């Protein structure tokens, strides 16, 4: 008996000691949101009226869309016929408007808003991340067909049954995608919203700067390669989205408006069916509005003339980058040491600390500015563990843009699919067969507990 108690005591003691010695993710940094406001020159209204444009854009970013725009408080026109959520800011919310997935997933309420008759897929939960779903391959019957790669967004919901969609009443005409079959066959991947703080700075980094940075890192001692994704039409470097598949903020906004909320616009002018539907019947006439639903407004004030898409892009472009903390978490000494360790072990080879923006005629904060983005804007092989098997432009199934780390301190969910809330888990996920980051993660694993903690504190300070 005594021996058993002694064993139990030793076990408990070792658990306590190992806990005390183990590094932990400090979690979402508390305090006020360190993001969400305009660039400093925009806040100073330089040039004159730019702040008005920004404030108008914020309102539009927060606007809730309904099908006809006739519901109180939901005056945006054009929701659906297929959609993932009903507002930009419902998903780009943490820690402030423009961010990433919030703590409470709005997609649960979106499923049945105003009489909509959607089934909530198993991978959408109230405390989980906002998710966009894609099927890796098209199906033949209920089996994924590897000869037909898909990769397009499968919107979660439809407007069938909504009070403002009386002519779109049959789920037979507009069924939800077969999510349970896709889950059962592993033929589904997820993406979470990318934060858009500081996006105007990213947009205004010249291709030349990106190429020069790539050349400067060419002879790194970490086994890191990397390349750029390019815009198919003009051949320049594209930079927005998880795979850097989108060229500009306006394209990014227009595509998201159409894909995520189902709002046709002047960049993506038709209502969007599911992948595959666009090759057969499209969508029923009763479910469609006149297009484009979002457009230039000729009969309004100067600011109101812009379409929502243009305003969304302007919001992102004029949004300030997150402000890091110099003391929280862990204190300045730990944060500074974590930064040095982060650089030394090779993280900064891809997560490039800063890049300079090119000259900008828009506002002075965008011109010749230092963007502390912690990204090289390149796409890198991230291995079999992170591969989502979706190819976009020049990016293959396991290639992802180096995710900018500014603002990571106040993010809740990590990695492209939001699979973890734990930074340590996210770091570990960088290592798997085929990943360019393997050696860097080996270096990380060689660190002492306190050094790892410093790195985590540094990251949560951003």
């Amino acid at each position: 008996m005594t021996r058993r108690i002694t064993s139990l005591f030793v076990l408990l003691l070792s658990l306590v000691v190992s806990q005390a010695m183990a590094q932990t993710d400090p979690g979402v940094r508390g305090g006020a949101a360190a993001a969400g406001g305009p660039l400093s020159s925009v806040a100073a209204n330089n040039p004159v009226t730019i702040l008005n444009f920004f404030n108008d854009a914020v309102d539009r970013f927060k606007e809730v869309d309904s099908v006809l725009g006739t519901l109180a408080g939901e005056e945006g026109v054009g929701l659906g016929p297929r959609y993932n959520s009903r507002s930009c800011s419902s998903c780009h919310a943490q820690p402030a408007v423009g961010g990433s997935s919030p703590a409470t997933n709005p997609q649960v309420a979106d499923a049945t808003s105003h009489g909509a008759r959607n089934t909530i897929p198993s991978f959408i939960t109230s405390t989980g991340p906002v998710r966009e779903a894609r099927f890796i391959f098209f199906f033949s019957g209920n089996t994924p067909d590897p000869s037909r790669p898909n990769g397009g967004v499968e919107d979660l919901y439809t407007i069938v049954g909504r009070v403002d969609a009386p002519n779109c009443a049959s789920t037979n005409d507009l069924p939800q995608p077969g999510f349970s079959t896709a889950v059962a066959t592993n033929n589904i991947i997820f993406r979470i919203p990318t934060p858009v703080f500081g996006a105007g700075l990213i947009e205004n980094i010249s291709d030349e700067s990106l190429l020069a940075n790539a050349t400067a890192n060419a002879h790194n001692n970490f086994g890191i390669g990397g390349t750029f994704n390019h815009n198919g039409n003009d051949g320049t470097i594209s930079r927005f989205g998880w795979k850097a598949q989108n060229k500009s903020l306006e394209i990014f906004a227009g595509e998201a408006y159409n894909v995520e909320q189902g709002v046709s616009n002047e960049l993506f002018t038709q209502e969007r069916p599911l992948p595959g539907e666009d090759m057969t019947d499209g969508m029923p006439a009763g479910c469609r509005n006149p297009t484009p639903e979002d457009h230039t407004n000729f009969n309004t004030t100067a600011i109101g003339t812009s379409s929502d898409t243009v305003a969304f892009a302007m919001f992102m472009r004029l949004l300030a980058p997150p402000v890091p903390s110099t003391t929280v978490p862990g204190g300045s000494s730990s944060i500074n040491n974590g930064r040095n360790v982060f650089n030394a072990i090779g993280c900064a080879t891809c997560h490039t600390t800063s890049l300079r923006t090119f000259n900008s005629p828009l506002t002075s904060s965008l011109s010749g500015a230092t963007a502390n983005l912690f990204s090289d804007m390149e796409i890198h092989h991230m291995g079999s563990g992170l591969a989502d098997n979706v190819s976009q432009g020049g990016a293959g199934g396991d290639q992802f843009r180096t995710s900018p780390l500014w603002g990571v301190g106040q993010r809740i969910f990590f990695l492209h699919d939001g699979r973890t809330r734990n930074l340590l888990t996210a770091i570990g996920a960088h290592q798997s067969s085929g990943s360019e980051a393997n050696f860097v993660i080996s270096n990380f694993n060689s660190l002492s507990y306190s050094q790892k903690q410093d790195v985590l504190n540094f990251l949560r300070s951003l």
Partner: protein
Amino acid sequence: MIRRILFHGLLAMALLLTGIATASGQGDFATTDTNGPPPTPLPTGLILIPGAVARSSDSRTPLPETGRIVRSVYRNAYFGLSYTLPEEWIQEFSGPPPSDTGQYVLAEISPSKSFKGPSRGSILITAQDLFFSLGPGQTAAEIIQDSAEHLPSFYKLESGPADLDIANHRVTRYDYASPAAGLHWRVLATEVRCHSVQFVLTSADPGLLDAMVEGVKHSEFLAEPTPGRGGGEVPVCIPHYAVPANIEYKVEPVMTTRKADSMPVRIIIGKSGKVEHVHVISAFAEQATIITDALLQWRFKPYLVNGEPVAVETGLVFGFDRKRAAAKKSAHLD
């Protein structure tokens, strides 16, 4: 473990492909959940849709990326490299595919979970094809020299660069450390077949690093009449041989899709001037096929050494040439 995962993955893919033969033509795009027969799931943990990767015109010719660890020895037939791993060290994860600048991760080695040694570390073996290398330095020694001279401020140079001889190859070494991370690095590089083959050794324990360096010193490299330039049993490597003055016949590869990527290629030209081997280092599948089909039709003037024709290995880039663009940019800045 990795082999087992691969096996099960391939097995599952084979089952899938069998399924396709019977299911194709059913054409169900936006499938809804049905009550049909139980579906066959896709394998997980595999890259099913690769982007640009390496491809070769035959499976016999050794390639830089096809080295393997067998019984604790890393062997690479292309480089004639043989390196014995420290006891109980393994490769848990394979590296990425070759980059579009000709960089290869040949092996990533670290202690196994059962390793009981007093300290840990890691070994990275890479190769950089010098035909396509970005950045300053045209040789392994020059690249090392430049890296040592431009160490970021968060590192401290400990020694070198200095030359030593390993297996009749000139190896350049330099050592550096990070005070913040408490880690030390030993970098050793040499040239084989116009590649910079590099060992990067990392640990917090300088004693362990010394032992790791000794291990590298017992490596073997390809015997080359002119070290680093091939010859003997392998082709002579010559940069810029695929130029109009040397080409007698060529068929342009006509791409069917427009992609703004860089597609570096190594070819082996036989004594007769015929292209005998094509190694597309980084390209999408359809691009690689088009390039390979075209290049196998090219004919070159035979390359003569002492009046005798010899096989030649050279490189060329299709699409966007990142090296040339970087050099042009550098010249412009100068």
